[in-house]
Each structure stands twice: as structure tokens, then as C-alpha cells.
């Protein structure tokens, strides 16, 4: 406590303090604005009704298109996506067609040598019918699923969830 600060030191500390305060006043709002995407809350997705009835769905995976309204900051648009839908016992399964390797689109039975598998043409990725990735091919995990439901006999599709079958 006995150590005294000189007038010059006091002046320097005061100026640095005031300067930092002013700089923070300028920088903080801009930093917060730039970081905003980290703090934006994701919109709650509703179930989207497709044009496919529950009765139509067989054990053979079929491509089911669905369209929903996407709010992207100031831009609202209709986005069309699709799922691979099939019946597994009593359950209805809807797989996301996004490959778990690098995000290309997988197709059921597109490879003649693997008629009972999902195939990704980009790097020859393969998945079993339950979505499990075939060892020795590029994908690092099983295909994601969509939440599914029913509305007046029609199939409805919701959020992407991790694979529940593997």
C-alpha cells in the first residue's frame, strides 16, 4: 500500500481506462451483431403432410417428396425435399437421403451389384436397408431418419432425427 503512483502513472491509467471504455462501447455492439447467428433460436418445425397415403407404403423404399415453407432470415421460400419411405413390420420408416459421408443424395438400389442397398454415387457409399453404413465404404455413420406421422390417412414428415434402427 505504501507504493505511491506518480501523477504520470495516474494519468496513463485514467486515459487507458477511459479509452478502453470508449473502444468497448464501439466494438461490443458490432461483435454481438456478428455473433448473432450463434444465439438465434431455431424455428420449431411442424409436421409436413405429403401426398402419399399410409396404405400406399410397401416394404420397398419409395421416394416421397414433401414441400415446406422455409424462413431463411429475410428470405421465405418453398423448399422441396424428399425421403425414402418404407414399411418395416408395423412401423413406417422414412430415411433422409443425405449421405453421411459428404452430403450427396443416396438412392435405393441404384447400384446393380447391390440391389438391396442404398447407394451414393459420389464415392460409392453403401447403406443396408436399415440405414446402417456398409463397412469399407466412405460413410461414417448410418442414415438419419425423419419423424413420421399420419394425418387423415396421409403420411406426415417432421424433423430429422438420428437413426433409431441400428
Amino acid at each position, binding site marked *: 500500500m505504501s507504493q505511491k503512483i506518480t501523477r504520470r502513472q495516474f494519468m496513463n491509467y485514467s486515459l487507458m481506462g477511459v479509452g478502453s471504455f470508449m473502444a468497448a462501447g*464501439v*466494438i*461490443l*455492439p*458490432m461483435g*454481438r*451483431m*456478428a455473433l*448473432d447467428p450463434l*444465439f438465434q433460436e431455431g424455428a420449431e418445425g411442424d409436421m409436413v403432410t405429403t401426398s402419399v397415403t399410409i396404405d400406399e407404403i410397401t416394404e420397398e423404399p419409395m421416394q416421397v417428396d414433401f414441400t415446406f415453407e422455409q424462413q431463411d*432470415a*429475410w*428470405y421465405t421460400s418453398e423448399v422441396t425435399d424428399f425421403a425414402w419411405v418404407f414399411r418395416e413390420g408395423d412401423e413406417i420408416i422414412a430415411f433422409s437421403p443425405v449421405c453421411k459421408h459428404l452430403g450427396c443424395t443416396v438412392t435405393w438400389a441404384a447400384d446393380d451389384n447391390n440391389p438391396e442397398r442404398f447407394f451414393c454415387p459420389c464415392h460409392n457409399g453403401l447403406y443396408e436397408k436399415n440405414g446402417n453404413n456398409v463397412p469399407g465404404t466412405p460413410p461414417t455413420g448410418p442414415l438419419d431418419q425423419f419423424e413420421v406421422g399420419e394425418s387423415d390417412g396421409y403420411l406426415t414428415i417432421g424433423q430429422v432425427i438420428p437413426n433409431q434402427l441400428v
Partner: protein
Amino acid sequence: MFNRIYDWIDDRMDITPIWRDVADHEVPEHVNPAYHFSAFVYCFGGLTFFIVLIQILSGMFLTMYYVPDIVNAWNSVYYLQHDVAAGLIVRGMHHWGASLVVVMMFLHTLRVFFTGAYKAPRELNWVVGVLLFATILGLAFTGYLLPWDMKALFATRVGLDIAGSVPFIGDWIQTLLAGDDTIIGAQTLTRFFAIHVFFLPAALFILMAIHFIMIRRQGISGPL
């Protein structure tokens, strides 16, 4: 810690003379408000520079959300002002700063004029200052259009008509600025955006560098 990093760099680069040259210089008594309070008039140039810095910073961050397109420009401004945290503050800084920088620059010009600081050997710096004045006014004018609201549209219509009243070449200037003979639209917006964020700031940086180098070379003019 900080001192040791500084020393390490200084040992290798010898940076001390560089920042001394920039920051360490005498302030004459007649421009120091601590001696004569009326000397605050000498602060307007520095204040102009300070606000220009804020304009550059806030502008950089606004561009993260703004899009120069007639369909989305207004919506993106609305989004960044209402839905982005602190967006209102940053846009406010840029909005009010734009007017303030013109005011400060005008007061700086008045000070230089009434203290006779433009006289020999500083005539060239006055000329560069006038070019800076025009550059800042150009930035203010082009920035006005970017939110793409009604005020922007009509202010730009007036400005373009003024440009069009230049003898002989007025029509050409007007078409070059607007990008079209008659429409104030898509091409006007992209042109004004390019001018506002690339061309004029480039000119501004070069002119400010020349302005400041000349001040350091010639020193601050003497007392009245």
C-alpha cells in the same frame, strides 16, 4: 508478458521508431485546449477521423447482413434492425455517424479557413481536403439509397436530377450513375453499393493518407 512480446518483436523489427514517428509528436500550446479552452476548434479534424473510423467499422459489420438487391435490400435492413441483436445500435451508429461526419468535416473546414491554415506552404493540403470533402459527400449520397425505402428513392431521384443538370454531359453522368436512362432500380442499387463500399472508401483511404502525411511533413500552422 505484453512487454516481453513487444521486446521480442522490437529486437527483430525495430518497430519503436515507426510508431514513435506516427504517434509521438509535440502539440503546440496554441492548439492545446488545456492551455486555451478555445483551442477545442482544433479537435474537429481528429473528430472527423474518429467518426470515419466508426463508419468503416460499423459499415463492415452491416455488410454481413445487407444485400444490394431491389427485392431483398429493404427486407435485409429490416431484418438486421429488428431481428439481429445490437443490429439497431450498429445501424444507428452508421446512420447518425454519417450525418455527424459531414458536420465535423464542415466545422474542420471552417476552422482551417478562419485560422488561415490553408495559406502557403499548405495550399496543397487544402486541395486534398476539398477532395476529401467531395468523397465524404459522395459516400453520404450513395449510402442514402442503400436501405431502398421511399426516402432513399426520392433523395436519389433529386440527386440524379442535379447530376443531370450539368451542362452538355449531364445526361451521360446521370445514366452512368443510375445504370439506366429512366429507371432508378436494380442497376442503380448495385452501382451505388459498389461506389459506397469499394470505390469511394478506396479514394478516402488514399486521400486521408496524403492529408495526414502532409500535416506531419509541414507541421501544424502557427498561432493567430
